[in-house]
């Protein structure tokens, strides 16, 4: 074995070893970001009359998958929506609510939507009948994704693009 061959073997082995370590790291990296969220099956609202077309003020710049408005999809105020900004949005029957819900089963200050900059959360404000995600009553702020239906009394709201 010549000196040169042995040196090449040595350097080659170290290279392979580090290549392995770096590929392991890259698998972990994609493991963190590589979760697929399936497209939300929209709940059937076929029975409801189609909500009046909301004014189309879509922000062209908004990146894909980021909600731009909170819309009432079912209930007495069906069709109403409020654009999402950075401020929290209050929902309830009171006058200070972003959408005054005309729903007997909704409390005056019922629930609040708030964002941490990248994710929207819904928080129940101690309402009588509760705020539901699916069949579960929420007790603490819960992240809501695009199209997740949140129920307050007989009203259902969701985040839309």
């Amino acid at each position: 074995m010549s000196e040169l061959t042995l040196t090449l073997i040595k350097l080659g082995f170290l290279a392979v070893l580090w290549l392995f370590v770096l590929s392991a790291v890259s698998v972990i990296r994609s493991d963190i970001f590589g979760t697929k969220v399936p497209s939300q099956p929209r709940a059937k609202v076929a029975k409801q009359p189609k909500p009046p077309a909301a004014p189309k003020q879509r922000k062209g710049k908004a990146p894909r998958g980021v909600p731009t408005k909170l819309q009432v999809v079912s209930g007495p105020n069906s069709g109403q929506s409020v654009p999402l900004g950075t401020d929290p949005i209050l929902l309830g029957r009171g006058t200070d609510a972003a959408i005054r819900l005309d729903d007997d089963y909704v409390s005056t200050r019922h629930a609040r939507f708030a964002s941490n900059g990248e994710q929207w959360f819904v928080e129940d404000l101690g309402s009588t009948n509760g705020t539901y995600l699916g069949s579960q009553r929420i007790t603490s702020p819960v992240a809501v994704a695009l199209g997740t239906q949140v129920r307050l009394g007989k009203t259902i709201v969701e985040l839309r693009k």
Partner: protein
Amino acid sequence: MSSGLGSSPAWVPRKRRGAELVLLSMSVVIGIAAYCAVGLGVEGRIPAGVAKLSFSLAAVAVATHLVIRKVAPYADPVLIPLVVALNGLGLAMIYRIDLSCEDYCLGGNYEPLANAQLMWTAIGLIAFATVLIVIRDHRRLQAYTFTFGLAAIVLLLLPLIPGIGQDIRGAKIWIRLGPFSFQPGEAAKICLAIFFAGYLVVKRDALALAGRRIAGIDLPRGRDLGPILVGWGISILILVAQKDLGSSLLFFGLFVVMLYIATERPGWLVVGGVLFAAGSYFGYVAFGHVRNRFDVWLHPFSDPDNNGQIINGLFGLAHGGILGRGWGLGSPELTPFSFSDFIASAFGEELGLTGIMAILVIYGLIVERGLRIALTCRDAFGKLLAAGLAVSMALQVFVVIGGVTRLIPLTGLTTPFLAQGGSSIVMNWAIIALLLRISDQTRRPAPEVSSFESDEATQVVKL
């Protein structure tokens, strides 16, 4: 806190078994390449046993992969390749020391160890598969909390029983059953981790909240702390009686860290640090062999005749430099026990700083995956157990490699997966199996929840 978990959009974790297979093939290639490079470096030809070793390593890789696909399909994809790579590197290094040592080491009484190590790897694989297949849900282990605590104490006591206990190189930590000798301390480590996790998960609120506050540190009630202190005290006493400093350090560290994780009270780290300092001082004053270890650590070159092992290890590391001498081209056989306790210095000599850094990063990744499993685990017992196992691995690597590189006093512990030694290999494979089991539970998709439309009318209450 758990509300809304089920109804948030279904999270679909990726199994990533394909990525695992690719990484696994890379680790098998590393093992075989190391083995061939050893032959080329020492004898100038590819060793004759390469077919056997390649077949064995590939069999280990394929078998673990198939077991995981079958019984833990959502388990972490990175752990097994990392472990197989370490195991292959260890086999190659032990073979390399075999080649140079045959008529040099231990006064000519040296017996080749590589084949035995390969056999222990196979047994470790069986242990791995058994743990994964038998334990289908790690939460069932919690029911046997005190059984595991008792088992740990019995295992630690075994080497003191005359007849089966063995005194090797001043430490009574071995038992001999027929042709096999075994270090029960390695198994006791897992049992203790399960015991601590099971006990702390039940008592952590009592430990964290009930009790007096003295000097800014919340001290728990004696009755909450009693059983765990007794268990810990017995194991430490046994270890002192057996003169096994490394394991004492490991168990104490594991105990303090798990207490900290369970209660979220940093005060425990302070208490643990003070206790450790006091214990070290007491050990230094009371035991000659502890004082000896400190002296060797601080002034190794003052007595080259007795400190030859650590001096040779340091010279080996220096000889290796940045890139190492290359496989088979250093002289790790000059360091006594370079195949077990001092395998880190053997790697430092042949692969250099670059190689030993890669090995440390691999250990770091194993620990990181363990802690990540603990973070994402949904039940408190699994969290504590995964964190405990990961921390025990981290502590063990720190204690042994820190000792070899003279960062801390040298204490005898095995380097997981690398060092020669059957019990260590088998038990570390079992630890990996436990981690994968917890990880499989964690990454598995949550069960379906029914949509609310069916019960819409029933939940509205008008007041």
